[in-house]
């Protein structure tokens, strides 16, 4: 197994500085971190990767068995850490990767120094008193929406996504391929993302955790961020003055500063 290739791992920044591992969420790839990386790489060693099925990961490594639960993704994170021999890692998980980070840290707490959960939600569906924000019908609608917008996707797209870093002439196409995923894989990832319930895993977190939420986020509302903060003992909650689900794009300086402050603190 070659996790470096499978997950298209990139390492940049200061070689001897603490390691910050950035995990992207559903819908995108490691490019999503592009605006926060310049700031963070001044102080940290940054490890970026694409989840299998996203970006320029090895699509051939994708299987429905491994990737219909978030555990499969968490295992990938641990394999990346093991293969690169990363220690005292500050693991930053955005969106669904926040729960992937929780699962990874619960499995091998000794591997991680800190967790940063960026716009996390442990459960997107409403359940009794819990307000995740969505109903099952909403999620089915999302799956339809994904499907309609992948209509133009074809097998012709696949070689571009699989990519060849040695061929600069496809760089433009790769740019265009950002956020593009094989529709069959995207569908499974969407289901896995929005139908998982990891509320019970929060209490098991022993790694020092910061919850970073946005002041207005349609996907992970503030009460959900509060819920995560309440369930993880000793966690800190930071509310970024940012709108939307991707503060690393809408408020990159603020997001980078919040990550750096927590990651750099003793």
């Amino acid at each position, binding site marked *: 197994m070659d996790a470096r290739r499978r997950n298209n791992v990139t390492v940049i920044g200061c070689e001897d500085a603490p390691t910050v591992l950035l995990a992207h969420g559903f819908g995108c790839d490691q490019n999503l971190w592009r605006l926060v990386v310049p700031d963070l790489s001044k102080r940290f060693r940054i490890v970026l990767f694409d989840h299998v099925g996203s970006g320029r990961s090895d699509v051939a490594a994708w299987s429905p068995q491994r990737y219909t639960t978030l555990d499969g993704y968490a295992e990938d994170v641990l394999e990346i850490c093991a293969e690169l021999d990363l220690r005292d890692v500050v693991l930053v998980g955005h969106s669904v990767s926040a729960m992937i980070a929780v699962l990874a840290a619960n499995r091998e707490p000794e591997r991680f120094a800190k967790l940063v959960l960026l716009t996390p939600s442990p459960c997107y569906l409403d359940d009794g008193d819990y307000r995740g924000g969505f109903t099952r019908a909403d999620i089915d609608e999302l799956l339809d929406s994904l499907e309609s917008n992948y209509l133009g996707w074809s097998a012709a797209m696949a070689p571009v996504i699989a990519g060849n870093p040695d061929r600069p002439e496809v760089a433009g196409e790769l740019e265009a391929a950002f*956020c593009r995923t094989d529709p069959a894989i995207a569908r499974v990832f969407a289901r896995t993302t929005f139908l998982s319930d990891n509320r019970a895993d929060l209490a098991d977190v022993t790694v020092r955790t910061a919850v970073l939420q946005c002041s207005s986020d349609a996907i992970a509302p503030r009460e959900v961020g509060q819920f995560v903060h309440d369930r993880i003992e000793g966690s800190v909650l930071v509310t970024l003055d940012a709108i939307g689900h991707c503060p690393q794009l809408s408020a990159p300086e603020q997001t980078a500063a919040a990550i750096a402050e927590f990651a750099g603190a003793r």
Partner: protein
Amino acid sequence: METTFSALLEDSAEDLYENAPCGYLSTLMDGTIAKINATLLGWLGHERAELLGRRRFADLLPVGDRIYHETHFAPMLRMHGEIGGIALELVRADGTRMAVLVSSTVKTSANGTAQLIRTTIFDAGDRRAYEHELLRARQEAEQERDRVQLLASTLQRTLLPPSLPDVPGMDVAAYYHPASADEVGGDFYDLFPLTGDTWAFFLGDVSGKGAEAAVVTSLTRYTLRAAAVQEPGPASVLKRLNTALLKDQHGATPRFCTAIQGLLEPAGDGAKVTLASGGHPPALVIRHNGAAELLDTRGGQLIGALPDARFVEVELRLRPGDTLLLYSDGLTEARTHGRVRYDEEDLRDWANTLDVGSATETVAAVSRLLDSFGDGVDDDTALLALSVRLLGDERP
């Protein structure tokens, strides 16, 4: 004429904006609606004052599309500064929905700061209905394809032994690589006990693919097994098959195959092997010291083509550490990376460089070789290997 034309050109920019045949919307970077044209307001059934400064673009979307907006649309727009042709729905004031195609660009100031998002919205009702049909047709086609693949793989399994039997003192291994998941391949192999401690085996390739080939494969396997039990000499087994295939030529497609039939008898610390070939690529033997040679069975004729087909027999001794490899032409006719066809001599030369001591290792090495050809392997490939265990190697 002149006057009408210039009157038309005086069409005011404002009228053009408000009553354009598409919806226009400008929002702040956080999505707050700052400007909207009359066309879009008409479509939505909202008053301007209800929306300006109060609602965000995403608020106009149903929840599923709102998630799509947050996870795909907005990030892509931020990254690229533009996004086009996204299929979404808008929720009208009365709760009904409208299918639209949306394109947005980010307007930046002279110093590059993003200022606002400009969005155009096209009514896509008819087009979306048509796309919906296309989508359904594609889903049906995918399901159909899955069924065909399941059928092909199930049929394929019935044509190959589920596992190879244990042969005392020997290591045996096989591999089958179908060129296509949609069709049953034409390659086959088997290994089975005869009386006493003798064993028979074969590997071959019938003409064609698919259902027609599966019929021939089934007949061929059955005939080879039955004939070997009655009269184990490999050449006479192939003769029986030749007769059976010739008798069966009643369809439009001629039915023939190539095959190597083998007989394995224990001899001293090794085994005696008798092989007969009918038009099949030569078997390869890899000696315990690493030397590889092709077993000359030239002159053996295609099976099922001629009434008096001749088959060529060879005999060899396998000693501890020796491996015999049978293969089909999917391997030796594969196109390598240089796009030239791999051939038998290439296979022999490659085998000479191998450091393997058993059938299992040999089959693993050849399957890796096949993988390295990637899409250069355009035919099915079957492998069957037998090796005599080294003394003291009692592994089951």
